C-alpha cells in the first residue's frame, strides 16, 4: 500500500506537468473515440445490412437507371421471394443545409422487405392509400418537428419541380443501429408526374432490392439475375446488400484511411508527451532511486514504481478522456445527424481507447525504467569522494 501511495504522491510532485500530461491524454482519448466512432458510423449502413437481401443495379454504374420492367423478370428468378424498386430522390427541404436521405420506393413491397423499419399498420395503410404520402424516420420527424398529417414540400434536384407530400407514417427502428433519419415517398407519385412532364424519364428506377429465401444461395441467385439481363439494353449487377452498401463506403475509403492514420498518429504524439514526462520524472529522481536501491529495493521495485506512475497517469487520462468523450460525441451526433444517422460509441471503441492509453503508459515507462535500473547506485548518489 505504501508503494501505491508513493506512486500516487509522486504524480502530485509537479501538479502542472502531471495535469497537462493527463489533459493531453484525455484529448487523445477524445480524438481517438471520435475518430473511431466516425469510422464505425461510416460503416454502419453496411453493418446493418440483411443477408436476406440483394441489390440489383445497372451493370455500368449506380448512376444509370434500370427499367421498371426488370422487376417482374427478377421476381421470376428461382430463390427470389420479393422485389421492390427504389430510387434516389435528392430533393431539398427549404434550403440545402437541411439535407436528409430521400428515397422513392415501391410502396407495396419495400417496407415488407425491410422489417427493421417498424410502421404502425394504420399508418402503413395510409401510406398505401395516398400517392403523395410519405414515411419518415422518428429522428427525422423529431429534427424538423413533423407530425402525422403535416404537409411538406420538397424541391427536386434530380426530379425538378416542387413536390408536395404529406407525412402519413413515422417509423421506428427495430434495432439500435437502424437508421431513423430516412424519408420514403412513393415511386409511382414521381413516375406519374414524369409521364406527364417528361415521358422519356418515366418507368425507370435506381435499383431493385431483392428478397431471397436462402442467404447461402446469394451468389448463385445474383448470377442468375444478372444472366437474365445479359446483352439487354440495361445489364445488371447484383450483389448482397452489404456489398452494395460497402460500395458507397469505399467511395470514401481514402477519408477513412486518413482518419485511421490520424488516430494512430494521435496516439504516437501522446506517447512522446508521456514518454517525455516520465523521462523528466526519472531523471529528477535518480538520487531517490539510488537511495531506494541502497535500502535494499531491487530493480523489480523500481520497475513497479516507474511503470506504476506511468500507468496511473495514463489511467487518469483515459478516465478523463472517456468522461469528456460522452458529451463530445453527443454534440457531434447532433451536428452530424444528417450524415451519420447511426453514431454511437461501441464497447470496442472504449476498450481500444483504454487499451491504447495503457499501452502508451507502458511504452512511455520503458526507457526511463531501463535508465533508472541501469544507473549505478554510486552514480545516482553522486557521492564519489
Amino acid at each position, binding site marked *: 500500500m*505504501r508503494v501505491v*501511495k*508513493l506512486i500516487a504522491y509522486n504524480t502530485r*510532485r509537479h501538479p502542472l506537468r502531471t495535469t497537462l500530461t493527463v489533459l493531453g491524454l484525455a484529448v487523445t482519448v477524445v480524438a481517438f473515440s471520435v475518430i473511431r466512432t466516425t469510422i464505425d458510423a461510416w460503416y454502419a449502413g453496411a453493418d446493418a445490412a440483411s443477408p436476406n437481401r440483394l441489390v440489383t443495379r445497372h451493370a455500368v454504374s449506380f448512376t444509370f437507371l434500370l427499367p421498371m420492367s426488370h422487376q417482374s423478370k427478377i421476381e421470376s428468378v428461382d430463390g427470389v421471394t420479393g422485389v421492390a424498386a427504389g430510387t434516389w430522390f435528392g430533393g431539398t427541404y427549404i434550403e440545402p443545409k437541411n439535407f436528409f436521405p430521400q428515397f422513392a420506393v415501391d410502396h407495396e413491397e419495400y417496407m415488407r422487405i425491410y422489417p427493421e423499419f417498424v410502421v404502425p399498420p394504420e399508418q402503413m395503410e395510409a401510406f398505401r392509400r395516398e400517392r403523395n404520402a410519405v414515411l419518415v424516420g422518428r429522428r427525422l420527424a423529431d429534427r424538423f418537428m413533423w407530425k402525422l398529417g403535416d404537409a411538406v414540400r420538397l424541391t427536386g434536384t434530380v426530379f425538378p419541380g416542387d413536390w408536395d407530400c404529406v407525412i402519413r407514417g413515422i417509423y421506428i427502428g427495430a434495432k439500435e443501429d437502424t437508421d431513423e433519419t430516412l424519408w420514403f415517398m412513393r415511386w409511382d407519385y414521381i413516375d406519374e408526374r414524369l409521364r406527364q412532364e417528361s415521358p422519356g424519364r418515366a418507368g425507370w428506377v435506381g435499383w431493385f432490392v431483392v428478397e431471397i429465401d436462402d442467404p447461402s444461395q446469394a451468389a448463385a441467385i445474383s448470377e442468375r439475375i444478372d444472366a437474365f439481363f445479359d446483352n439487354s439494353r440495361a445489364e445488371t449487377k447484383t450483389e448482397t446488400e452489404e456489398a452494395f452498401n460497402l460500395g458507397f463506403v469505399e467511395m470514401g475509403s481514402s477519408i477513412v484511411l486518413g482518419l485511421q492514420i490520424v488516430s494512430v498518429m494521435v496516439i504516437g504524439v501522446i506517447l512522446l508527451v508521456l514518454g517525455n514526462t516520465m523521462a523528466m520524472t526519472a531523471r529528477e529522481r535518480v538520487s531517490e532511486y539510488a*537511495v531506494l536501491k541502497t*535500502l535494499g529495493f531491487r530493480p523489480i521495485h523500481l520497475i513497479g514504481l516507474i511503470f506504476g506512475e506511468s500507468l496511473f497517469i495514463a489511467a487518469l487520462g483515459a478516465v478523463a478522456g472517456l468522461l469528456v468523450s460522452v458529451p463530445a460525441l453527443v454534440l457531434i451526433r447532433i451536428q452530424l445527424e444528417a450524415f451519420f444517422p447511426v453514431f454511437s460509441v461501441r464497447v470496442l471503441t472504449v476498450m481500444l481507447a483504454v487499451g491504447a492509453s495503457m499501452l502508451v503508459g507502458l511504452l512511455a515507462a520503458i526507457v526511463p525504467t531501463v535508465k533508472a535500473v541501469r544507473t549505478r547506485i554510486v552514480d545516482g548518489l553522486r*557521492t564519489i*569522494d
Partner: protein
Amino acid sequence: MAAAIVELKSVFKSYWRDRLEIPVLQDISFEIPAGAFYALMGPSGSGKTTILNLLAGIDRPTSGQVIVGGEEISSLTESELARWRSAHIGFVFQFYNLMPVLNAFENVELPLLLTKLNRKERRRHVETALSIVGLADRMDHYPNQLSGGQEQRVAIARALVTDPDIILADEPTGDLDKQSAEDVMSLLEQLNHDFQKTIIMVTHDPRAAERANIRSTLDKGELIKA
C-alpha cells in the same frame, strides 16, 4: 577483542574517466571488530566514501576482497547484494535523502516494506525506531516540516529500523549546525553503546571523530593511521 565484522583484504579501486585510470584506493587492508564505533577521516578525494560504498555493497572493488559479517560481498550479484543490504546494513547519508512525499513514519517504514512483517508489526518497529531517535511526536511530519537535525534523526531511524548489524554513516553531521551535530553523534554513540550496533562513520569533522573508539585516516588512497 571482538571478532572482525568487516575485513578489507588488498583492496584496489580505480575509476575511469574516458581512458584515464584514476586510482582511488591502493592495497587497502584492515579489519573492524564487531561492536566498534569506527571513524574514517581524510580530505576530500581521499577515498573514504568509496570505502563506505564498498562496505555497503553499492560499489565493487577493482580487486581484493570485501568481507562483511563473514560474507564475501564483492562476489554477490546485484540482487543478492540488495537482499543482503536490506538485512544487514543501515545507511545514513550526509544529506538525509528522505523521500519528500512521505512523512517521517512512512520514510522509516520504507525498508520494512521489503520484509515479511505485517502492517501492525511494521508500525511497532517504526514507532520504536522513532522513539529511539526522539521523534515519536513527529511521525506525521514531512521532511520539509523538519529541521536538518530532525531529518537526519529520521534517516538514522530508517537505518536502524530493520535492526541491521552495521550502520554506515557518510558524513552524518556534514550538513548540520553544531548543536544538531552533537545530538546526532550522541544518538550514534547510544546506538553503539546501548544497542551494540557496529557504526562505521566517514567524517571530516574531528569532533565527530572523537566520539568513535577507533579512528583511521585515509590519504591519497592509503590508510596511513589506524
